[in-house]
């Protein structure tokens, strides 16, 4: 029989830390701009999970309010970021993160 362990908030915090780490390493390693963007979204999700955990732990609803704002800002950021990527990749279809000089001009 599995030992029934109590789920404390620390479990969620550890999971959030792991997700954030995976996102950070992915951002550093990948070269495709769109996949790098997805790793940023991973990090944002890890942070929202942490916020909700603290909100429940401290019985404070402000944690959840901040999550709403994080979602809105993430949406706006994705819209503008993908617009930039579209404009960039139209001119240079094979640009990766190594070609920093394509932003010139």
């Amino acid at each position, binding site marked *: 029989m599995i030992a029934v362990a109590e789920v404390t908030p620390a479990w969620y915090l550890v999971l959030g830390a792991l997700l954030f780490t995976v996102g950070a390493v992915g951002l550093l390693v990948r070269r495709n701009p769109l996949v790098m963007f997805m790793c940023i979204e991973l990090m944002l999700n890890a942070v929202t999970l942490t916020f909700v955990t603290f909100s429940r732990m401290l*019985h404070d609803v402000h944690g959840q309010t901040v999550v709403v704002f994080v979602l809105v800002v993430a949406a706006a950021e994705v819209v503008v970021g993908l617009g930039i990527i579209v404009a960039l990749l139209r001119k240079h279809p094979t640009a990766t993160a190594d070609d920093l000089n394509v932003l010139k001009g």
Partner: protein
Amino acid sequence: MVELFVVLVAGAICLGGALGVVLNRNPVHAALSLVATLFGIAVLFIAQEANFLAAVQIIVYAGAIVVLFLFVLMLLGVDQAEDLSIEPLGGQRVAAVIVGIGVLGLSLLALASTGGEATGARPLEAAANRVTEGVADIDQLGESLFTDYLFAFEVTSVLLVIAIVGAVVLSRKVRRAEYVDDPLEGDSA
């Protein structure tokens, strides 16, 4: 017992999706792994009684943001598999893994040093933003959003308009022969 099972399964889905994003060579597969992570996070929100946020997470993140990613991937045709064996900067992967382990170690150390709580704050006893047991989370969230954070809420609406305008400007195709005609020169095209 149920919460243990839910947390373990949802956590596994989240981590599996996250590793899928980082390790998949095809960007479309990476986007689909991201959807798996977002669903796992939504389940974890529900496990922590943040039901409204779980719904909004699915609708906005998995239903709009990832779809936008897929649109751009298909539009630009950059869904060819990336060659992960090329490493332009020597030793970068090793450095990235070291940085990752450092970040993880720092977070876990901060968690462990406070005995699994990571914060010295204590639950508020009588405050306006205290979550009370009988009230639905969406009621309290709405009250907090429209009273304490009203100004920020209005500013985010402006932010969204700016983002829309920015996206339209950035992604339009500029025609080659786009001259600005001199208004003094009579008839313009």
